Structure formats: C-alpha cells, structure tokens
C-alpha cells in the first residue's frame, strides 16, 4: 500500500485550520483549553476512522476518506482520533495560544 502523497491543498487546509485564533479562547471568564490536530499526511492511509468517530465533528473527510480539519476550536482533546488511528498519523497538541500569537 503506497503512502498517499500530501497534496498542496490539504497541507494548506491544515495550516489554516491550526492557525491561532483567540476569539473563542475565553468563555465566561474561564479559559477554555484549545487543541491543534496535526495530521502526518505521509503516513495517513485515509481509512476514515478519525473523522467517523470524532464526537465534536472537528474532523471531516475529503473524497478519499482522508481527514480534513474543519472545526479545530471545537476539539475537546478526548484523543479518540489519536488512540484509534491505526497508522499513528494524527496527533492532538494542547494549543499554546500566547506563544503562537507572538510568532504570528
């Protein structure tokens, strides 16, 4: 099974999806933890498990079944996707909003 090549489109989608956004950061004074969903396109076999089971519909899929990060800010960090990806191809990272904003 040859690895599916990362297309420019999906790489760009990932970048956009994970761009730091502070809008939903603060909710009723309590800081909501945000997460980045990072897909390693070289290892992902587009099996569709992560998008099918994400409880918050953060992950959608393209027409091959590959993950498309749709609503990154809705991620609750349950890690279902990460624990069930048979190819170690998706990871959830706690978003460091402050430092990402500095870099931007």
């Amino acid at each position, binding site marked *: *099974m040859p690895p599916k090549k990362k297309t420019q489109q999906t790489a760009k989608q990932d970048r956009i999806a994970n761009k730091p956004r502070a809008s939903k950061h603060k909710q009723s004074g309590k800081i909501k933890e945000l997460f980045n969903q990072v897909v390693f396109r*070289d290892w992902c076999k587009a099996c*569709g498990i992560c998008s099918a089971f994400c409880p918050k519909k953060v992950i959608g899929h393209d027409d091959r079944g590959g993950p498309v990060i749709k609503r990154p800010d809705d991620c609750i*960090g349950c890690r279902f996707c990460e624990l069930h*990806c*048979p*190819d*170690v191809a998706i990871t959830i990272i706690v978003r460091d909003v402050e430092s990402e904003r500095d870099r931007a």
Partner: protein
Amino acid sequence: MTKEVTKLIHKYLRHDKKFPHVWCPGCGNGIVLGALIRAIDRLGLEKDEIVLASGIGCSGRMPVYVDFNTLHTTHGRALTFATGIKLAKPSLTVITLMGDGDATAIGGNHFIHAARRNLDLTAIIINNQIYGMTGGQHSPTTPYGCYATTATYGHIEHAFSIAELAVTAGAAFVARGTVYHARLLDELIEAGIRKPGFSVVEAMSNCHVQFGRRNQIEDPVTMMKWLRDHAVATEKARKMKPDALEDKFTIGVLADLEKPIYTDEYQKVRDRAKSLARQ
C-alpha cells in the same frame, strides 16, 4: 496534562523500517500496536527488558516495527520460542503476539499447554476471526454462518471463544478487549504484563479486507461500530439474562488467579536435586 500519545509511540518504533506499515488502511492491528506501546510505557519497562515474539500472519508483522528484542518466528510457534527464552532468562518480560489462526489453529496445542503450565508469559491474541494474510480462509474463530474463501456457502463449523478457552485451560490471567475500546485495551495489556504467570489478552479486531468484504461489512468504521455494539462489560454481563447475551461477547477481565509459577517451581526442583546430589 495528558501525554502526547503519538510522540510516545514514536519513541518505541524502529524508524529505519518502512512506514507507513504494511497493514491495510484501517486495520485493527495498528490500534493494538498503539495499545501495546502505551501499556509498556505505563509499566516503565526499558526497551531492552522486553522480548516480543510473534508467529506468522498479518498480526505477526508487529515485532518488525517496534524497538524491543524481537522474534518473528514460524506459524503457530510464538509460544514455543517464548517458552525457551523465558526459561533461559527468566528476568526478561516475554510477550507473544499471535493471530487467531496462529494461536488457536496450528498453534492451538501450544496455547492450551502454555496456559496449563503457567510460565510467566503474556500472550496477546489479535482475533479478527479469519486468516487475514493468506486470503480470508476460515479460522477456528470464524462464526457459524459467516463467509470465507473456504466457506463460500456459509461456515458450518462453530467458533472457539479464545478468552473462555484460555480460562478453561487454566491461564492465570485472562482478559478480552477490542480495538474500539482502545483505552481499556491499554489497561488490559498492562495488567496482563504485570501479572506473574500466564496471561492472555484477546483483542477483538477488524479485518474488513478479508473478513468484512465477504460478510457485507467492508469498511473499518462499520466493523468498529459492530465491536462497540456487541461488547458487554464482564460486570454488566453477570447481571444479564443468557438470551440477552446471545449475539454479544464480554470485555474486561475474565480470570485472575494465583497459581504457582513454572519458573519458581522449576527452581525448587533444581534446588531439591542439588541437595540430593550433595547427600
């Protein structure tokens, strides 16, 4: 903060091997690989203290990818190699990884006698209810009525329940999990490795390519939903009526017993023999 799981797994992979691995997209073997690594990490074992031995089959490819002491042995014989290793060096943590065909067809006799003997080994059995690697022939766990390359009119034999078989054969620790219940699987594998004596962890898994394709469940997601909907926790199952459990299987710990361990008993025999020789 939870650990970044993927980073952790990378720590234990052999990065000089070809990735992505050889398994089909969505194959449950990859999920079991993750669970095994997380369990080992939680136990805090050094890579070099672990031996992972497998037989032949799709599942048998697993040791190739992990940076432990590994053996890819012959079909059905993972436990025999593991027995030799454990006897030669009891300080090692010895784990075997087998498929359902591997463990209960060609290796069935080794399996029941290893359970009876109670050597401190952990047997992880990936049960995908079919011979995956060789093209979908029925295995001893293919359910009655299901289709396989060698059961084109529906299977007329009845399936083994691996975990129950292990309980009857006398294994000290027996558990069953599924690739859908990944967190539970981590815990069961961890408990199995921790347990002194022969432990069996059966991991119900999806082979949508060889099993699913012939049984109208062609994708991994549908198979995982099937696992989710047919698994009942052992505690809950105890309170249920037998007919409510008819098309279900139990997950969790099925047996956890204290029994004398083979290597300890063998040491006693050695000591006794030595003292007799001195007299």
